């Protein structure tokens, strides 16, 4: 059973509250029809590119299947602005890095996933740990 402190969910909730009048009320993530909770995926692949964009960053990976065939996936991440404020740059996730993605696949069946957990192949977190440790110069 996964215990998850949905602080993020909640803080987003304030934003959602403020648009309450005009918008349908959703618990949090407004991209509710984008990914399918019934389609969990675990992907191991090589980064080809990370788009450091908003509203969500996207990590593009090439995944080699058991038959040797390579498929390209794109994995949704968070807004990169907080990482930039902590000193990360676009070099933080270079092409060629091996990553493991656990998440859920797109509802329309395309090779897109929501990256609930993304780590390097050795298990190390991509950017920040759960206590926001891991930023460049964050050795204190």
């Amino acid at each position, binding site marked *: 059973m996964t215990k998850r402190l949905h602080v993020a969910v909640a803080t987003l909730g304030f934003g959602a509250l403020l648009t309450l009048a005009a918008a349908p009320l959703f618990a949090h993530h407004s991209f509710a029809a984008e990914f399918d909770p019934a389609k969990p995926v675990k992907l191991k692949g090589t980064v080809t590119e990370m788009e450091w964009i908003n509203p969500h960053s996207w990590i593009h990976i090439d995944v080699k299947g058991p038959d040797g065939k390579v498929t390209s996936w794109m994995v949704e991440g968070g807004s990169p602005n907080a990482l*930039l404020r902590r*000193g*990360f*740059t*676009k070099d933080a996730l270079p092409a060629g890095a091996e990553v493991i993605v656990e998440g859920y696949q797109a509802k329309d069946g395309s090779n897109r996933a929501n990256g609930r957990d993304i780590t390097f192949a050795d298990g190390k977190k991509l950017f920040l740990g759960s206590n926001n440790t891991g930023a460049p110069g964050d050795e204190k």
Partner: protein
Amino acid sequence: MPNRSWTLSLAAILAAAIPAAAQTAYRAPRAADGKADLNGIWQALNTADWDIQAHAAAAGPAPMLAADFAQPPGTGIVEGNEIPYLPAMLDKKKDNFAKRYSEDPEVKCYLPGVPRATYMPYPFQIVQSPSVILISYEYAAAVRTINMGKPTKAPVDSWMGWSNGHWEGDTLVVDVTGLNSKTWFDRAGNFHSDALHVVERYTPRSADTLMYEATIEDPKVFSKPWKISMPLYRHVEKNAQLLEFKCVEFAEELLYGNLRKQPRGGTAPK
């Protein structure tokens, strides 16, 4: 020796005359910190957004809109009127031009990048303080902040780039890097890569005009740097004000029309 002293006198007269000539060049009012004051609402008065090179009038993309959205002519803003594309890049320019009414990021209300934001047919406002100069563009709420302190490096690419500025006399010089590859220079398909580097110069030329110059360099697309220049005109009307051109809502049918539950009657390309 009379000949030599006459030459020296002539030289002295000429030397005195040169600073005098310099003194008649326009000197803008000072901002509170002694720099030229560029505060104001400005706008370019040309058709560079259609095509930065010299161009004649042409039919527009929508026959039913006829003269309203036909292409107006323009004498161009490119010095020498040549854009030095690398030979391998010319096909892409041709391709862009052929698909311009669907592929131009402006159609989708995407941010225009630099230098295109300067010559969009909408006003922009310079809000100048000693440490940062903010430029707010009416088009699509585009905005830039120019760092006037110690230059810093762009951590990632962005649509409006990363601007470090300094003064050279009364000229504001802005060094722009960190521009992504996704903007165009105009509606005619002139493009660049993410190696684009732009150096802008804003020089007051009269009470109500600036001279704007930009040097463009991108070794992945062009064989050498090239330059654009144009005057910028101050909005002098008493009620001059930037309003909103938040065009994202106008672009929704174009961007998402084909994903509607009930497609609207009419077009939804791709």
